[in-house]
């Protein structure tokens, strides 16, 4: 009888992992459609809770012992603390801080994977040394990399680009690889393996920092998505240590999904992933002197308000400047005001606008902009010549025509929103600073372009007030 119950317990545990894995897959599938996304998230969460509970109750170690009651109490206490902190922060945080938060939670997942691998390494029952080491390395990179990404998005870590970076990174990566191989093959290592594993842990953490340090803000969506897939892979590696199907499937699944999303982002910029990581942007910063680029023309608030008020079709192109100035609400107000006056207002969303995949969509959704108004680049571009006014708010490289016709430009070949084809262009910008690609934007010198300098939020507020007075 006792033997039977033991077996049943294990079978039920495995079965619950299967159910959890199915819930993950269905959940993510539902998450990819607007109508069912919320349900999908709940399914995936339910799968996770199920796997956590059954593990807690039914898991047995190699000797067949269940998790002791005191351990269960400790675990439940820690989980309760983590859940309360995680959920409260997630509920309270401002929507504009969303990219940071997603990065931070990704970092915690990477850290958990690294710690699990670190401790399982010295477990004599653990026979899968290679996956343990890979889990440690990938998890550590995901952790420190995501923390740096978090810091950059939050504004307290600056880009750090030096020509030497490329070589330092290659050297670090080689060193990490050498230590991994050495730990795999060395029978009598010169330094004890316990020490080496901690050295490897620290090296991987440092590499994660160096890996993200030179990545410019415009490439952030790609890197965040990539780090996300790293965390998934690290979790899968830990899954191998325990031969745990839920972890393996969930982890690999997320790893694959994250990789695909990363590739989609890269494709949207017409660059390879390698190019993003090594960082080609910012290199050829100097404007070529032989090209006559014209002059900058400003527009007054009253002219801008008249132009917008008495027109038919307006397209707003939002960029990171909109998020940075937290101007999404006032932007939505402008949109509503113009719509009430009979103007058709739409938003042109570039796939890599902002600092994380889909950043502009979330930001504008928060400000009550119906998502039917958010039009993707490929769908809005054919309509550009019929557009009366394009308002570029805090976007730069994604509207730079140099991407289309200047083969010497670093962003040449990147698909852009064809703002220059519309009849009038108003560019809201803080100053004449260049975008993250640090290149001259020919759109600003276009004959049809008028600049409205100032903080996006202030400018929009004044503009809304002007239009109300018309």
């Amino acid at each position, binding site marked *: 009888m006792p033997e039977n119950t033991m077996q049943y317990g294990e079978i039920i545990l495995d079965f619950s992992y299967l159910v959890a894995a199915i819930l993950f897959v269905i959940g993510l599938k539902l998450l990819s459609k607007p109508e069912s996304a919320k349900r999908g998230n709940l399914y995936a969460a339910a799968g996770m809770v199920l796997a956590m509970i059954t593990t807690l109750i039914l898991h047995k170690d190699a000797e067949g012992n269940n998790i002791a009651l005191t351990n269960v109490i400790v675990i439940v206490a820690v989980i309760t603390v983590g859940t309360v902190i995680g959920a409260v922060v997630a509920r309270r945080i401002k929507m504009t801080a969303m990219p940071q938060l997603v990065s931070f939670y990704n970092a915690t997942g990477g850290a958990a994977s690294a710690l699990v691998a670190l401790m399982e390494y010295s477990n004599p029952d653990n026979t899968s040394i290679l996956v343990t080491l890979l889990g440690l390395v990938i998890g550590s990179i995901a952790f420190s990399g995501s923390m740096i990404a978090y810091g950059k998005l939050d504004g307290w870590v600056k880009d750090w680009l030096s020509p030497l970076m490329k070589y330092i990174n290659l050297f670090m990566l080689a060193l990490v690889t050498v230590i991994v191989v050495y730990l795999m093959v060395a029978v009598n290592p010169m330094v004890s393996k316990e020490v080496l594993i901690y050295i490897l842990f620290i090296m991987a953490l440092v590499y994660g920092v160096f890996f993200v340090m030179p990545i410019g803000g415009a490439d952030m969506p790609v890197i965040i998505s990539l780090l996300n897939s790293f965390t998934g892979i690290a979790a899968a590696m830990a899954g191998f240590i325990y031969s745990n199907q839920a972890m393996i499937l969930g982890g690999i699944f997320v790893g694959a999904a994250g990789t695909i999303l990363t590739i989609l982002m890269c494709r949207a910029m017409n660059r390879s992933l390698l190019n993003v990581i090594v960082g080609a942007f910012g290199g050829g910063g100097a404007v070529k002197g032989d090209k006559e680029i014209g002059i900058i023309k400003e527009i007054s608030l009253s002219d801008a308000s008249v132009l917008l008020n008495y027109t038919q079709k307006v397209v707003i192109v939002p960029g990171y400047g909109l998020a940075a100035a937290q101007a999404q609400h006032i932007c939505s107000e402008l949109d509503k005001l113009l719509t009430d006056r009979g103007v058709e207002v739409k938003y042109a969303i570039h796939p890599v606008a902002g600092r*994380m995949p889909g950043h502009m969509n979330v930001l504008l959704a928060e400000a009550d902009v119906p998502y039917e108004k958010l039009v993707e680049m490929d769908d809005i571009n054919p309509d550009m010549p019929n557009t009366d006014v394009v308002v570029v708010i805090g976007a730069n490289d994604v509207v730079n025509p140099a991407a289309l016709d200047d083969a010497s430009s670093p962003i040449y070949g990147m698909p852009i929103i064809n703002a220059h084809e519309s009849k009038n262009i108003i560019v809201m910008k803080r100053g004449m600073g260049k975008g993250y690609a640090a290149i001259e934007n020919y759109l600003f010198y276009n004959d049809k372009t008028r600049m409205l300098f100032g903080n996006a939020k202030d400018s929009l507020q004044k503009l809304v007030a002007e239009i109300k007075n018309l």
Partner: protein
Amino acid sequence: MEQVLLYFNEYKEAIFIIILSIFLGIEVISNVPSVLHTPLMSGANAISGVIIIGGIILLGHADLSGFSLELALGILAVLFGTLNVAGGFVVTDRMLDMFKKKKSN
């Protein structure tokens, strides 16, 4: 060669799971509208918190009789994993709430 075959034999189930999950992941994510890139990434991020299971197993069989580095790291692993799971799902839910609200209008 023999080693490779033996390795494959030992891990064949895992290798099958990996290959099939990769295809599944690609299949599920393809053709996602960019509106949903952020929630999707955030939801996937929460799922990668499945490492919490590893944390539970680790801490579950840890020796609680005295304080040790292992115990401290184990607690940290469970805490981090929980943050990833709870924070990830709640943040995703909150993002999706905003999309939902607009739909009914």
